[in-house]
């Protein structure tokens, strides 16, 4: 018996006409040689795909990915100049510069750790689950704060010169 391919391809309405009592002999393994061999493989592939929850979930995530909303963490770096700069004494300037250097060194280390963690998350998102990609940190918080501290120190050097502090 020739299978009703057209009805199946056309969609659910036509497919519904195949009720429980319908002749299903064309679905059995002993179907006639006139059945296209490729169709069986396609059906098997479709069956595997549609029965696989992970594949369905991945497809849904991929399709809704651009629709998700997630804001970057707010970063507030130190300003190069500050309103109280003119009131700073030479020793206060030196203290702040040392403090900035120490803090920048800590941020440098943290920045390396964040970059390593990001790389690991990307690999995990490919190998394990795409959800891991959502935890990647692109705020660049440590890098921004670190560079800002270096520039702040540059401004403090000029302030020392302006105030005629000992070098």
């Amino acid at each position, binding site marked *: 018996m020739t299978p009703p391919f057209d009805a*199946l*391809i056309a*969609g*659910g309405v036509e*497919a*519904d006409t*195949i*009720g*429980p009592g319908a002749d299903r002999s064309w*679905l059995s393994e002993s179907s006639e040689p006139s059945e296209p061999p490729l169709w069986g493989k*396609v*059906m098997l592939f*479709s*069956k595997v*795909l*549609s029965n696989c929850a992970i594949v369905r979930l*991945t*497809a849904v995530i*991929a*399709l809704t*990915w*651009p*629709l*998700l*909303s*997630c*804001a*970057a*963490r*707010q*970063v*507030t*770096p*130190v*300003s*190069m*100049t500050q309103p109280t700069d003119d009131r700073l004494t030479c020793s206060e300037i030196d203290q702040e510069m040392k403090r900035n250097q120490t803090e920048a060194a800590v941020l440098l280390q943290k920045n390396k750790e964040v970059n390593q963690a990001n790389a690991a998350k990307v690999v995990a998102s490919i190998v394990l689950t795409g959800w891991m*990609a*959502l935890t*990647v940190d*692109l*705020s*660049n*918080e440590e*890098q*921004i704060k670190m*560079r*800002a501290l270096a*520039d702040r120190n*540059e*401004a403090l050097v*000029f302030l020392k010169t302006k105030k005629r502090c000992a070098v």
Partner: protein
Amino acid sequence: MTSDSRLAAAAPFVRHAATGIVLLALAACATSADPGRMVVSQAAGARFPAKLQHAMCVRNVTGGEATNPLWVSEVDDAGFREALSNSLSSLGLLGGQGSCRYFVDVDLLGLSQPVVGIAMEVTSHANYKVYDAGGKPALFATIKAPYTAEFSESVVGSIRLQRANEGAIRASITQFLDRLRTMT
């Protein structure tokens, strides 16, 4: 509807979904920010001080990052320099060779970017340093400039992020120009 007929009905959807995933993956290749989209050509507000007219040169731009096509869009030093120079030029501030009286150094501290989003907000952080010809600081400005690229700007996430980067830099340059107006 029987199980087999449901399978058959789902087959076209699975095919389309698979095609969509592949197309999305291909479309996700990141490209660097377009300098032309970061230029500020019209600036509303007060006039610039006369001493700055045709007297400014962009000397150093640091901190930018090259874009890895497999990662996210970034803004590189050359692109930022081009955008800033063209902005200064269009407003009559850029000096010619040998006529520079003010030198601009920019440290791109970084871009704070979202991973995903319908409306992607990127915030640029940059330090602008203007020195006079004698090397004395004339202006130090730390500028934080956000920009949100709406879904209408591009349906493709990677391009939307690129637009957000470009908008954040454009907003940063706009704020810098505002600071120049008040320079004494």
